[in-house]
């Protein structure tokens, strides 16, 4: 259900971009989704097709780049991989981790006419 709202936001963002960048059709969308963003990529693909119907992004291809989560481990003093919240540091097993990357849901680029 969450992904419906995200796709609605995505289509509205595309319409906004059409105004500021002067295009009429979106053919391809590159989206970056972090593994810690709590978003199901398959559900985004499915919902985007539906939400885009009848809009400037009708039939547009959606390319999702999944970004691995990373966190700063306080005991190690370095960046480490974090696949999901609650996982320990792969080096020292600590959970004193501060998320650095992997929570984003971002439009990276568009192919348009």
């Amino acid at each position, binding site marked *: *259900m*969450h992904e*419906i*709202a*995200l796709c*609605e*936001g*995505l289509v*509205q*963002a595309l*319409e*906004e*971009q059409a*105004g*500021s*960048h002067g*295009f009429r059709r979106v*053919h391809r969308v590159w989206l970056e989704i972090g593994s*810690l*963003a*709590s978003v199901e990529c398959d559900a985004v693909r499915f919902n985007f097709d539906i939400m885009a119907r009848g809009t400037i992004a009708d039939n547009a291809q959606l390319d999702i780049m999944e970004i691995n989560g990373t966190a700063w481990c306080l005991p190690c003093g370095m960046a480490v991989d974090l696949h*999901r*919240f*609650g996982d*320990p540091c792969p080096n020292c097993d600590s*959970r*004193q981790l501060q998320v650095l990357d992997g929570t*984003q*849901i*971002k*439009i*990276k*680029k*568009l*192919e*348009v*006419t």
Partner: protein
Amino acid sequence: MCGICGCEKTASGLGGYHPHDHVHSEVAEGSNTAGPPRARMVQVEHDIMAANQSYADANRAHFTEHAIFVINLLSSPGSGKTSLLVEAVSLLKKRFPVAVIEGDQQTSLDTARISATGVPAWQINTGKACHLDAHTIGHALEHLPAIDGGILFIENVGNLVCPAGFDLGEAHKVVILSVTEGDDKPLKYPNIFHAADLMLLNKIDLLPYVRFDMNSAVEVARQINPKIGVFAISALTGDGLGAWLEWMIAGLDHAKERRQMALLARRAELQHELDSIDLQF
């Protein structure tokens, strides 16, 4: 019309998204020759959550300016959120201005329960959406009386997944886990426990009848979020409720202190301006 941004739209979708100004670089690969337009690439770097975040920031600025302490209550359906709120607001309303925003997919049943205590409440029906967003909260505020120096509760939609990602402008997200739900729930829904600053273990009056290990629940919650605070409470018996109320009152005091500091800084600024005028005459 939107009271926050002046737009003509009402809330819809993700934060009632509507266009605002953004500056982006553009890489044009098309040409100006006649014929059908050639496809070109546009670099965007647009965060889909940015719209919600800008409304959340506006809400937070409003709350700071009016010294309102705001908590965003999150839990599964049936954890006892509304019963807990009824008890909390009944006690707090004697000392502070209090208001409640209720979020549910449908019905105004919860608002009716809060209103029965005499505390102002506004119901948001999210319809198909599974969470509250910051734009909707901004509009809900238009329907509530001023509660400067008071406490605002936002009871989110009963859902342990989606509300975690939406900042509403609150001071704290508070997650409620009832002892009838299972002590491993933080492991199953880590995002919400990571986002929350406080966990309330509710329905502790039922502990003799259920298999729920309190220590284990706290341990796994702190695996997800080492900084999460914990209170064990019962909305039914009132056990532990006092500790949570004290936590909120401390939060409210902090909000008032910050407001006082801001006003003092402004006064000093104005005094400085006044002084500089005096020097000229």
